[in-house]
C-alpha cells in the first residue's frame, strides 16, 4: 500500500486533490452561512454537463466545466436570486444535459460516468494548474470577501441603506464558488466535490466555538478526509469519489453524535 501511495505517478493527482480539499471547505462555510449549500450540487451538475459538452466540441473538460459553472454563477448573481431555489434548477438542468450529452455524443456513457464518480488518479497538469490557480485566487480574495459576506448575512439592510457596491462581493463570491466547484468536479467527481463543500462546513457549524474555529475545523476535516480517502482508495483498489464521501460521512457522524 505504501508503495502505491509513494509512486510518483500519484504525486500530481495527490497535490491536485489536496489543494481542492483545502479550498472547498472554506467555500462551503460561506455557502452554509448564506444557506446556499445546495449551490455545490447545482454548480457541480452544471460543471459536469459543461465538461462533457466541452469534450464533445474539442475543449478540455476543466475548461468546459468552468465555463458552464461560471455561466450559472453569473446568471444567478445578475438575476439577484438568493437561496437554494436557483440551485435546484441548476441540478435539474445539469443532470438533464449531462445524460443527454452522454447519450448522444461519441464521448458516451463512460466519460459521463467518470465525471460523476471522479477521476482523480488520472488528473494531469491541466487539473493541477487549475487547482493552483484556484488556490491562489481564493488566498487573495477570501480575506476580503469573508467579513463582507458575514456582515451582509447578519445585517442585510446595511448594504441597501448605505448604497454599498454590494454586487462586487456577492458576484465575486458566486464566481469563486462556481470556479471552485467546477475545477473540483472535473477531478473529484460530482458527488466528491459536493461532499467536500457541504460536509466539513456542516460539521464546523455544529461544533466550532467561534468563526475562526469554524473555518479551521472545516479545512482540517476536509483535508483530513481527503488524505484518508486517497490512501484507502489506493489500498483497497476502490473508486476515489465514493471513498471520499464515506470518509466525510464518518466525520459527520462523529460530529453529530459526539459526547
Amino acid at each position, binding site marked *: 500500500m505504501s508503495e502505491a501511495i509513494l509512486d510518483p505517478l500519484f504525486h500530481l493527482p495527490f497535490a491536485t486533490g489536496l489543494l481542492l480539499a483545502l479550498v472547498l471547505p472554506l467555500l462551503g462555510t460561506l455557502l452554509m452561512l448564506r444557506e446556499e449549500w445546495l449551490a455545490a450540487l447545482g454548480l457541480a451538475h452544471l460543471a459536469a454537463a459543461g465538461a462533457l459538452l466541452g469534450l464533445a466540441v474539442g475543449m478540455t473538460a476543466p475548461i468546459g466545466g468552468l465555463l458552464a459553472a461560471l455561466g450559472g454563477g453569473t446568471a444567478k448573481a445578475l438575476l439577484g436570486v438568493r437561496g437554494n431555489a436557483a440551485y435546484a434548477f441548476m441540478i435539474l438542468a445539469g443532470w438533464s444535459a449531462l445524460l443527454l450529452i452522454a447519450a448522444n455524443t461519441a464521448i458516451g456513457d463512460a466519460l459521463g460516468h467518470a465525471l460523476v464518480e471522479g477521476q482523480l488518479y488520472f488528473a494531469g497538469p491541466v487539473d493541477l494548474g487549475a487547482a493552483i490557480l484556484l488556490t491562489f485566487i481564493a488566498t487573495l480574495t477570501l480575506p476580503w470577501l469573508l467579513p463582507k459576506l458575514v456582515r451582509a448575512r*447578519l445585517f442585510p439592510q*446595511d448594504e441597501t441603506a448605505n448604497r454599498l457596491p454590494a454586487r462586487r462581493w456577492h458576484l465575486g463570491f458566486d464566481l469563486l464558488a462556481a470556479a471552485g466547484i467546477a475545477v473540483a468536479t472535473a477531478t473529484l467527481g460530482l458527488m466528491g466535490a459536493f461532499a467536500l463543500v457541504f460536509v466539513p462546513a456542516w460539521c464546523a457549524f455544529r461544533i466550532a466555538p467561534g468563526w475562526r474555529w469554524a473555518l479551521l475545523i472545516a479545512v482540517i476535516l476536509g483535508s483530513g478526509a481527503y488524505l484518508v480517502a486517497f490512501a484507502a482508495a489506493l489500498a483497497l483498489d476502490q473508486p476515489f469519489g465514493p471513498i471520499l464521501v464515506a470518509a466525510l460521512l464518518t466525520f459527520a457522524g462523529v460530529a453529530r453524535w459526539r459526547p
Partner: protein
Amino acid sequence: MSARPLLTLTGLRAGWDRPVVGPVSLEVHRGEVIGLWGPNGSGKSTLLAAIANGARVFAGTVRRAPQLRLAVQTQQPVRIAPLPLTGRDLLRTAGADVRGVPGSLAAALRRRVDRLSGGQYQLLCVWAALTSGADLVLLDEPTNNLDPDHESLLAEMLSGQIADRAVLLVSHEQAFLERVCSRVIEVG
C-alpha cells in the same frame, strides 16, 4: 444638538405597492433620540424602511447629510441556527465596540450567538448598531423580547451612546419612548 441636520424628511409619503405612511416631515440632529409612536399598521416600520432605501417613496423627499452612514436594526434580527459566531465575532463583523460592552452583556461575547436568549441577542445587535460608527441608527421595536432588566439596560445604552450620533426609534411602548427619547412623534 448640532445645527446641520443629519436627516430631513419633507412631506414624505412612503409604502410598498401603495403609500401606507405620511406625509411626514421632520429633521434629525446629532445627539437626538427621536421616538416614532403609533398604533399597529400606522406605517412606522415602513417609514424607517423608506429612510433606509428599502421602501418606495411616493411623494416628498428624504435628504441625508453628505456621507451619512446608517445602521439598521429591524424588528426581527437575523437569527441563523446553527451559527458558529461568538458575540465578539458578531460585534467585530459590525465594526462595533467590543471593549465597552455593558457588564451584563459581556458574558455573551464568549458564547455562540445561536445559544443566546432572544433578549441577549437583540441587545447585542442594538449595541452593534449603536457603536458601529454609524451617524444615524434606525431601531425598529428594540424592546421586543426584552424583560424589564434588559429594557433598562437598553435605555442605558441609548443614553450612553448618543453624543456622536442620532437614533430614530420605533416602538409601541409609549412609556419606554418617553423615558429615552428627546422627543416623540406620532405616526399615522
